[in-house]
């Protein structure tokens, strides 16, 4: 520690102590700032008198019973699974094909194309393209159909997915494919037996990423699906209000918890297995 003492000649012990105190106060405030909104989600589902108040007045699982008896709970979660699963599978398959080809075969203008699409996707997926997408689905007779929502979401996620997956494929050495080729394997065989197992971790990560994106998406299904039977959990959560406009706390609190758990679990899974470096490249 002699170096540390020598390098801060101007600072007295008092100054250092004050600095420490300031730092820890700041950290405490930050922790409170990030924890406070989450408190409600942790406590209210188990409260016997749920309201906006985030206290645990008495422990009860009554709210969960109400939730599971509600006719909308399971269909909406099933819709969410359908939308998220469908989009994720489409994204994985299409992105894997495209990114492999783009990584291994030199196509003119490839990088410019990727950048342009990536930029466009971060711009367009939001509200800006809502009107034409709405109209287009109307013309295609896909409005109020889940398949339409899956296609729209997939189109929005694909550029980022290809970008991430191509990065992953680029990092795989070509020697495996080369040696297979030397031993006379046909392209189809190499793809199936060599390439597919190699890029599977990347595909898993991109798939989970897509799943999480769609699972939490509110706007697209909200605008494109009008039939309550087809709406996913993100939208249905906003229908748990009584006639007077008061939220039904028993339903909302438990539903929020049940609906959040899969995302957190998936995130933990990916994070533990593959780390952030690849996973968190893009969100939005």
């Amino acid at each position, binding site marked *: 520690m002699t170096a540390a003492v020598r390098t801060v000649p101007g600072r007295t012990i008092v100054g250092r102590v004050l600095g420490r105190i300031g730092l820890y106060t700041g950290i405490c405030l930050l922790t409170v700032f990030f924890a406070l909104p989450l408190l409600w989600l942790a406590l209210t589902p188990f409260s016997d008198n749920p309201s*906006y108040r985030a206290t645990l007045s008495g422990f009860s699982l009554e709210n969960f019973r109400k939730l599971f008896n509600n006719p909308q709970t399971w269909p909406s979660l099933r819709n969410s699974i359908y939308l998220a699963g469908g989009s994720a599978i489409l994204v994985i398959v299409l992105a894997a094909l495209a990114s492999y*080809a783009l990584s291994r075969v*030199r196509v003119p203008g490839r990088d410019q194309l990727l950048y342009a699409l990536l930029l466009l996707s971060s711009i367009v997926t*939001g509200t*800006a*393209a809502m009107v*034409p997408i709405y109209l287009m689905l109307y013309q295609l007779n896909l409005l109020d159909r889940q398949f339409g929502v899956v296609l729209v979401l997939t189109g929005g996620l694909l550029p980022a997915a290809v970008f991430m997956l191509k990065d992953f494929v680029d990092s795989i050495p070509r020697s495996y494919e080369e040696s297979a080729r030397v031993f006379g394997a046909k392209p189809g065989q190499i793809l199936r037996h060599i390439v597919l197992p190699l890029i599977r971790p990347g595909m898993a990560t991109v798939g989970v990423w897509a799943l999480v994106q769609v699972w939490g998406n509110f706007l697209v299904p909200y605008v494109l699906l009008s039939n309550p039977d087809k709406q996913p959990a993100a939208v249905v959560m906003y229908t748990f209000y009584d006639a007077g406009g008061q939220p039904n706390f028993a339903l909302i609190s438990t539903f929020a918890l049940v609906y959040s758990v899969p995302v957190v679990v998936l995130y933990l899974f990916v994070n533990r297995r593959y780390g952030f470096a690849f996973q968190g490249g893009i969100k939005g």
Partner: protein
Amino acid sequence: MTLTSKPADAEPTAVGGPGATDVERAQKRGPGRDPDVVGLGRGRASLFVAPALVLVGVFLVFPALWTLYLGLLDYSLTGASAQSPTFIGAQNYTDALSDPAFTKALYLTLLYVGFSAVIGQNILGFLLAWYFRTAPRAVRTTLNVLVLLAWILPGSVVAFLWQALLDRRDGILNTVLQTTGVAWTNDHPMAVIVIFNIWRGAAFSMLLYAAALNTVPTSHLEVARMAGARPWQQLRDVVLPTVRRHVLTNTLLITLWTFNDFTPFLLTGGGPNHESETLPVYIYSTAILHGDLGYGSAISLLLLLANLVIAVFYIRLLRGGDDGSLKAQQRAERKARRAERAVAT
């Protein structure tokens, strides 16, 4: 990081594929190496790319172009113009630019993006990443989990959590601050959505900067410390120059995302009296709620243009600021690669 800087790099170290044809092809295309070791060929490669391109084209590129066209029409979901939209040229655009509601929405969006993303998320994310390098393990884990939870929970859930937090009667914020009966979303709507978005998005910047700080060589920091640099001097003279590109990439991404963020709608509904109506919310209410599709498209396009201007601005910064040493380094790498190829053939 996946996004930082990837112009055609990650070239194969082994040059030329097996089989003479590959080598020939590589030579014919000059500097373009041929990494196509499987032998897909351009034809099959195009087939692989085609489905993704079609979907992206139909559901991403086409809507963007259509926005341009729709903005030139007098087109509503209801009423006379629903049957036969008429071409009115640039009128929607001139209307929008002279519409005080639009200019206000634009102004609010800029405030929202500036304070919540460019300043808030950026700085908080960096400070967290910087602090985590030396923080005690327990503190780091706790704070890290909380920050990440704020980021990965679904938007609908998070919006409701904040409604509960800010509720006038029972909200926990009023309890903690001992302020009874303050209706936060009503009295300070912009402040609420700005702080909300900092809370929501700080994790991304934190993760990106944590990765970026890992690339700063510890030896440089040590040298600076030996030379007697204070922590903030180390930050300014050693760390910031190294992570400059990460800062720009991060700022570009969070700017674009925040610009198109629809979550404020879930929190304040754009109200009260349009005081937190950012552009995405404004587009939603004009086009979808009021059915004025032509006008809504025109505003969408203006939003797109604003995004494009921002993106180009950042990319300029990213390109323009490359210092000579980096360029020299790239030149040297390229030369080495060329030499390697020459030897191989």
